[in-house]
């Protein structure tokens, strides 16, 4: 008995429009909606929708023995909801079959796992609640952006309550070991690891329709035979790929859909089943621990993070972006939060890669820019405007710690005022009941004044910080949203 574990990735970033230096400070809308609409609609028509139909047919034909897993980034979900709502419906239909598992990931398909643990956790939560809301599932298995994984990430992921993670089969990590087993993490031994079978996955997603490939044409028969010929003890084959492999990377005419549809029949003949990652985790035992001191991924020849952080441009952009993370989390402005998400998409960094040869051509295939330098310049212009907006909310002259304490004070006081208000309300009701006519309701200010005084007396106890008494004036104006600005002056 053997198991195939299919997992498909769906991701689309919000692409940036051409944003000139002159736009900084004037234009706060950064996105190329036309390109986003165009691309996602095209891919959905050619790939996502027919592929969904294919999966649905396969699940129905095979009596729920055919199972797959999906990981859909939050940004892709937003775009699909907006431009291709029928895809969400079709996905819901798939979810209802019970044969589809949804995986967890960062909402923005971001690199936050490498830079900002707090942000990372927040994004994972945001993504999972989006999945829950749309498909009624709470993800149990984690998959990081482009399968980026190392020991630190493992600890964070385990800390968030996931029982397994999906990652790549980088040769420099695996060495002689085979990806066809369940592993566990060295830093969090209870976290199981599913490793991508790179060869068999890429046979489908990259090589399937290549006539120069020695094994062309690939048939389901042949493919299942390959799996069957694996050593007997290797019981798990993880096939991870981009969902647009069906219909987009491998066009419909190549027969990719028919190939997929034929798989279950040949698999059944050879006693090969289809499992979701969760099933794999519950049915297999890990064979060994896997230590990954440096991050690996499934991208580029190097299978590390150099696709996004390989050169000085990419490092600078990422460093600058995450330097304001703490600030952004203090903000309450919805637009800032949105932009913050969209700007984190790993794709922006992917476009800045200066790699050559095969890797380079993949980067430039996806990039909307003509050179990595243009990509960088454009991104930095946008980022610069974004940073100014964040700073306008909370000036850079106040450091984070001070700002935090100020905000805490304000929040405490807001709660305090709320409480006192309720008290006033209650007392006023009492007054109305008790002394009819003596204290009319209109005379509210007269009642409130002594209350405020009472509030002043209570205050020194409420905020934790020593500085609290100095903050008094702010407390009175607690209604204003930006007291921090006032402090700065």
């Amino acid at each position, binding site marked *: 008995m053997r198991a195939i574990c299919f997992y498909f990735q769906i991701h689309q970033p919000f692409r940036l429009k051409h944003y000139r230096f002159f736009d900084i*400070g004037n234009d706060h809308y950064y996105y190329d909606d036309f390109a986003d609409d165009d691309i996602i609609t095209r891919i959905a028509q050619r790939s996502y929708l027919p592929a969904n139909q294919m999966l649905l047919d396969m699940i129905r034909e095979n009596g729920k023995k055919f199972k797959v897993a999906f990981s859909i980034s939050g940004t892709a979900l937003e775009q699909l909801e907006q431009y291709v709502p029928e895809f969400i419906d079709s996905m819901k239909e798939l979810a209802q079959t019970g044969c589809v598992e949804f995986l967890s990931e960062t909402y923005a398909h971001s690199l936050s796992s490498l830079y900002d643990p707090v942000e990372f956790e927040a994004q994972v939560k945001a993504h999972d609640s989006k999945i829950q809301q749309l498909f009624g599932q709470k993800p149990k298995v984690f998959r990081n952006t482009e399968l980026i994984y190392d020991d630190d990430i493992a600890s964070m992921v385990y800390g968030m309550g996931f029982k397994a993670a999906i990652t790549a089969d980088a040769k420099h990590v695996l060495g002689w070991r085979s990806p066809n087993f369940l592993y566990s993490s060295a830093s969090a031994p209870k976290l199981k690891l599913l490793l991508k079978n790179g060869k068999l996955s890429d046979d489908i997603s990259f090589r399937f329709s290549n006539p120069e490939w020695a094994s062309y044409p690939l048939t389901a028969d042949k493919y299942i035979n390959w799996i069957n010929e694996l050593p007997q003890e290797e019981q798990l084959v993880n096939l991870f790929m981009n969902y647009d492999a069906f219909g987009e990377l491998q066009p419909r005419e190549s027969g990719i859909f028919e190939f997929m549809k034929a798989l279950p029949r040949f698999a059944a003949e050879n006693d090969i089943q289809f499992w979701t990652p969760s099933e794999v985790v519950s049915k297999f035992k890990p064979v060994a621990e896997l230590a990954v001191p440096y991050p690996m991924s499934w991208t580029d020849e190097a299978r590390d993070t150099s696709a996004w952080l390989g050169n*000085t441009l990419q490092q*600078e952009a990422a460093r600058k972006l995450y330097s304001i993370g703490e600030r952004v989390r203090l903000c309450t402005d919805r637009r800032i939060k949105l932009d913050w998400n969209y700007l984190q998409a790993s794709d922006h960094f992917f476009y800045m890669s200066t790699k050559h040869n095969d890797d380079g051509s993949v980067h430039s295939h996806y990039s909307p820019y003509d*050179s990595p330098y243009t990509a960088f*310049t454009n991104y930095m212009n946008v980022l610069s405007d974004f940073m100014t907006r964040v700073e306008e909310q909370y000036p850079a002259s106040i450091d984070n710690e001070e700002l935090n304490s100020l905000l805490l004070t304000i929040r405490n006081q807001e709660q305090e005022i709320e409480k006192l208000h309720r008290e006033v309300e209650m007392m006023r009701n009492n007054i109305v009941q008790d002394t009819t006519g003596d204290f009319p309701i209109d005379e509210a200010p007269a009642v409130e004044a002594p209350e405020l005084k009472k509030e002043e007396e209570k205050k020194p106890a409420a905020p934790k910080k020593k500085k609290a008494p100095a903050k008094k004036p702010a407390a009175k104006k607690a209604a204003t949203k930006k007291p921090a600005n006032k402090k700065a002056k």
Partner: protein
Amino acid sequence: MKALMFGWEFPPHILGGLGTASYGLTKGMWQNGDMDITFVIPKPWGDEPKDFANIIGANCAPVAWRDVNWDYVQSRIGNVMDPQMYFNLRDHIYGDFNYMSTNDLGCIEFSGRYPENLLEEINNYSIVAGVIARTVECDIIHSHDWLTYPAGIHAKQVTGKPLVIHVHATDFDRSRGNVNPTVFSIEKDGMNHADHIITVSNLTRRTVIEKYGISPDKVTTVHNAVEPLNEELLNLEAPPGKTSKVITFLGRITMQKGPEYFVEAAAQVLHKVNNAQFVMAGSGDMMDKMIRLAAKRGIADRFHFTGFLKGKQVYEMLAASDVYIMPSVSEPFGISPLEAMQMGVPSIISKQSGCAEILDNVIKTDYWDINAMADAIYSIIKYPAMFNELREQGLAEVNQITWDKAGAKVINIYRNLINR
């Protein structure tokens, strides 16, 4: 007095300072009166100003005889040149150039830019110059920059009139000393054949004398000037969203212009100041390197690249700027600081640029002196007195630098040559 000028660029379609200078000088000479100037450029677009010079396009001058009628010529090149001129030129074809690739009018095509096969274009240009020189009457021949020296020499040999060459730059400026031997030999040849050499600064004059071995009495400096700006440009305002000080570098991003010193100075200033943005406007072969350098210094969020700016965009950029900086390693003249001053932007220029010879109300530093540059930037954006003084005085100074004065000097040189 009739002058036949050879140039490579002419506004509004310009690629660098050469076009601006050629235009300003021609207009300045015309303002002095009694000048009849014919200006030859490789490829006119039709929207060049024609009121003070006759424009002849080298790509409209036939070198091979074609039997075409007036209407056809009118329809093909009527927007660029008077068809009658075409027929006059056709009457003076001096050789059989049918072996060359010519078009339906018997003309050679030009890109009018700086293409890969630049040397070929230069050669073709001088072939066409032979036809033009035989057609257009002139008292003196004037060649702007090395691209047109061969044409000037050819015209001189045909007409026997004195040749003036105008050195806007030498290859020593462009290459930081590693001269291209072919370019050098064209320049040297031009200087040898010239009856007089005009340089745009004393710096260039010294280069011509020392590096090209030209006799000093044959070389005169006529500094460049600027055209007064029109109201529309002067009234441009900084964009409303501007919150920080803007320090601008405007020019080709090449070795000659010293862009790396600007980046380094920017890094120093940004360590101290928060609300400053640095802009590198322009394009060039060192642009990608500069983007990398800015990223490496960790200032990329405050260091911006606009790409090539043209026409009004240049002035919009200046209107948004608080400091203009030109750290050129070797700048024969450098008109752009003057334009910045016209827009009321305080300027910092390198001592190694020609315009430093005539400007007083600017800050001058050595191009390599990053510290001095950073200090100057800092004081201009921090101290309003400094900013205002440089702005007011600079404006007053630059308004005195006009082309008619430069034109008068050139006319004087012509007179001496003709009466010799």
